[in-house]
């Protein structure tokens, strides 16, 4: 199917996110506006206005009731998805680079930037999934990253761990309740920062993207690197597709070098790899700037990518995508259906 081009943002996209049902797509960009779109036809449902700086990150709770966003104006805001009303604003000393709800939407973590003498931190806030409720002002927990600042973070299964990815190419596992550091392991090349961390559906493993041109599939429990996906360009984002055992990687030459390179050399393509066999399967062209963020529809119908060029592209999968199977996969499927 032809991709749907969403041209609602005026500046580079920073993150896009599907809701759990896969019918809505939220996007944030450096133009300070949050947009929400119908995933099936690309129609814009509305915008959320209020931030006074580039918005770096967004997340939606599992019931698609409230929305959390983090911005360069040093705030995390909660929004009523239905009305667009800003429900709550938390202020921080520095910009917020990442927000994420835990699996039942009761807790929200935020990653704050290291700047102006402030160390990078990961903060945890209690959230009530209720547009009427009064949200707590106080932070439940603050993890200070003294070694290397966190660039991305997320909640594991059962909210048991907080996993953070760092600027120096390492990942850390913190206890989800106490915030104690359990492990810190270098998985990417030294000083190649982690640019993205996205979960599998059950949050038992995750994929990391890094400037070292690789993406890695890591288990949340013991931070074991299970798979590595090498590419030929610095990566900005990676996601795991449900239904099919694929991963999608997005990247391209650094934004600052883009004006001097043609689209061909820039490698502005979404790359599909087989999750288990680590083989590259295909590429999708279209953007004319690096891909800053990719997201997979949790129901497995589509995927979307947001680029430095200011566009979001939604691609619905064709029949061929679902039919594609390695011989050994088909063999296994036949065996299972026979049993």
């Amino acid at each position, binding site marked *: 199917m032809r991709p749907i081009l969403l041209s609602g943002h005026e500046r580079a996209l920073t993150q896009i996110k599907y809701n*759990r049902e896969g019918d809505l797509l939220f996007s944030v960009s450096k133009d300070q506006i949050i947009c929400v779109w119908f995933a*099936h036809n690309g129609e814009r449902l509305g915008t959320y206005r209020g931030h006074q700086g580039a918005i770096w990150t967004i997340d939606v709770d*599992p*019931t698609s*009731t409230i929305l959390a966003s983090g911005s360069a104006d040093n705030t995390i805001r909660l929004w009523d998805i239905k009305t667009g009303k800003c429900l709550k604003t938390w202020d921080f000393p520095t910009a917020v680079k990442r927000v994420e709800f835990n*699996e*039942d*939407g009761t807790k929200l973590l935020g990653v704050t930037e290291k700047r102006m003498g402030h160390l990078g931190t990961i903060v945890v806030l209690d959230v009530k*999934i209720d547009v009427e409720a009064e949200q707590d002002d106080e932070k439940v927990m603050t993890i200070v990253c003294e070694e290397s600042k966190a660039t991305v973070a997320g909640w594991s*299964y*059962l909210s*048991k761990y907080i996993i953070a990815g760092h600027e120096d190419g390492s990942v850390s596992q913190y206890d989800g309740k106490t915030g104690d550091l359990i492990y810190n392991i270098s998985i990417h090349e030294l000083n190649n920062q982690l640019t993205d961390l996205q979960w599998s559906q*059950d949050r*038992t*493993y995750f994929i990391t993207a890094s400037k070292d041109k690789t993406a890695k599939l890591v*288990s949340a*429990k013991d931070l074991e690197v*299970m798979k590595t996906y090498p590419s*030929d360009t610095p990566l900005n984002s990676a996601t795991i597709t449900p239904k099919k*055992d694929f991963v999608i990687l997005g990247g391209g030459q650094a934004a600052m070098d883009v004006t001097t*390179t043609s689209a*061909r*050399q820039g490698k502005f393509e979404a790359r599909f790899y087989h999750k*288990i*066999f680590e083989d590259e399967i295909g590429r999708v062209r279209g953007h004319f700037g690096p891909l800053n963020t990719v997201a997979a529809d949790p129901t497995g119908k589509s995927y979307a990518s947001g680029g430095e060029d200011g566009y979001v592209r939604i691609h619905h999968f064709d029949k061929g995508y679902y039919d594609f199977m*390695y*011989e*050994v*996969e088909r*063999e*296994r499927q036949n065996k299972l259906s026979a049993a």
Partner: protein
Amino acid sequence: MAPSFDHLRDEDLDEDDFDMDEVDISDLREKYEVQLDEGYDTFVVIDGLPVVNEDQKPKLVKFLLKKLATVGKTREDMIYMPLGDDGMSLRFAFVEYSSPAEAAAAVRQLDLVALDKKHTLRVNKLTDVDRYGREGRVEEEYTPPKIDEFQEKEHLRSFMADPSGRGRDQFVMFRGETVGVFWNNEKDQPENIVDRQQWTETFVQWSPFGTYLTSVHAQGVLLWGGPSWARLKRFAHPFVNLVAFSPGEKYIVTWSNRPIAIPDSGHPVLSLDDDGKNYIIWDIETCKPLRSFAQLDTPAGPVDDEGVKKAPKVSWPAFKWSADDKYVARLNPGASISIYELPRMNLMDKTAVKIEGVVDFEWAPATPRRDGVKTYEQLLCFWAPEVGSNPARVGLMSVPSKQIVRSLNLFSVSDAKLHWQSDASYLCVKVDRHSKSKKSQATTLEIFRVREKGVPIEVVDTIKDTVINFAWEPKGDRFVIITTTEVPGAAVAPKTAVAFFCPEKAKGNAIGNFKHLRTLDKKNSNGIYWSPKGRFVCIATVHNQQSSDLEFFDVDFEGEKPEGEKDMTANLQLMNIGEHYGMTDVEWDPSGRYIATWASAWKHSAENGYHLYDFRGEPLREEAIEKFKQWAWRPRPATLLSKEEQKQIRKNLRDYSRVFEVEDAERISSADVAVVEHRRRLLEEWHAWRAAMDEELAEERADLGLVADPVAELLKAKQAEIAPDGAEEQVIEEIMEEVLEETEEIVN
């Protein structure tokens, strides 16, 4: 208490007990004696003078002074020529110069210079005579030089035996700072043989038979080879820039743009004679320099538009070798060609071959066999442009007789290029001509049929445009040219046309006239790459930002021949097309089975890497490698099989190929089985891990007293909130249209 003069006792003054003269310090003196500036540094000793008497002496001194004064300041009274008891001179003289530097220059420049026909000067520094000639410094008795025990060397041709038995070819890759040699594995990852960091400083190069791999360093050139890739040869030419081998792999020429400066402390292999030289010709076997040459003073380059003088272009190779390594020649632009004989490196007949205005020359790439010529000869061709009313001239010279075998006069020539066919059967002179107004350009091809009696010349003058590239089929008699209508050097790469030529069919063994076969228009192509075995040719667009096309042709296509080309000795067929973005170089493997294209980081930094094709243009493999610089196939020496044996093999090719096909199929299928097996294992491991993880997660959830799916509960709660009675459930209809079939009917 320290002794002082006031209370000095007699015992302290017991110097009588100690006699300085008794201590033998001669060994120390010898060892540490300072080379005093004795003032003799300005003196030289001249030997080899004629014997003269008192009366003749002033005449000789005067004559000698003329020579001596060419290198420094000296006077008649500073030449001291002692006479013997019999009143006759002793054949030597002492000369004082005004400075040590001049004395040194005299040694360098006047030594071995002929004074007249009978006498050759020998010039040495007076201090050197003292240092080396003093008694005891030179052993009186002859001791034979020590000859090292014979040690067996590694087999340098071992690379010809592929351990896998598949007759694969090797290649070297230089990427980043690493140089590696590999076996070509077609579609699969090349098999690494050796990989070394910083193996070379600038580039690598194979010797003509593939025996040695050359690496280039600031200190000189190294040759590597054998199964262990050990360092085999070493040529210490400081700051060397370029290297060229003789075709027979016997000699090597090195060039540096910096003249050699021999330090006072000396150089391990080079002598003072090499000081100030740029080229050195070495013997590979002994690693000894044979002769060195200074750069010729090229006439300053033409002044360009801005009035800035262009740096004179270095033409490389400056020294061109005859096919059998017996001669090497260098051009003295506009004047002559100097031919040197090997291995002595003496100028042939002691004089350069004078050719007025000569611009370029080329040796025949093979020892020619001319009709009716039985004596040994090498051929070289040269050309000289028009001077005044004299026509431009192309000549074919036989060496060593220096006889002009054939010459051709031409008019209105703006440039000419000489192209030998690989067997030296033909020589094509591509002549760019201008009209009287010096404007319009056209090209003619003057083809010398070297093997035929009297060397007839055939002219191809049907070409309207400028020819920018020309290439003979190796071992064959067909050629390809690329022409363009636009002026070369324009900002936009011009559109080009590729034209194929071949001889007409003729009776018997004769070769017919060269005829135009076909032209392909509107191309960007600029490179012609013939397979080293002939028949297949790849036309490519290299060094082009916009397009990078590759076209693979067969000139002996076995299918239907077009009606109009029935009497041609070629049947042209386009087999395949390809593209390699940004490619800068193309090279066939020595067997003519594969062709590699690469984009080198030396030229640009976009998408560096290589592609590999088979001879039909089927893409086999591509790899993007950061900072990929160079690829070079390892050449093979000529086959040892006789013509009959080769014919036999060709006849039974089907039997051989059947065996190889079976082997290939087995290898591929076993590789496939391994891949499938590996995937199956990966898949099983993954699903086992997933199952274990699912179980663990469910257990942990149950232990914590949580519900199986927390979100389902939340959603249910939300659902209840939105529609408490569940009645107001909204139904959204979505109409999906799917095209099941499309048919098109044409209605008359």
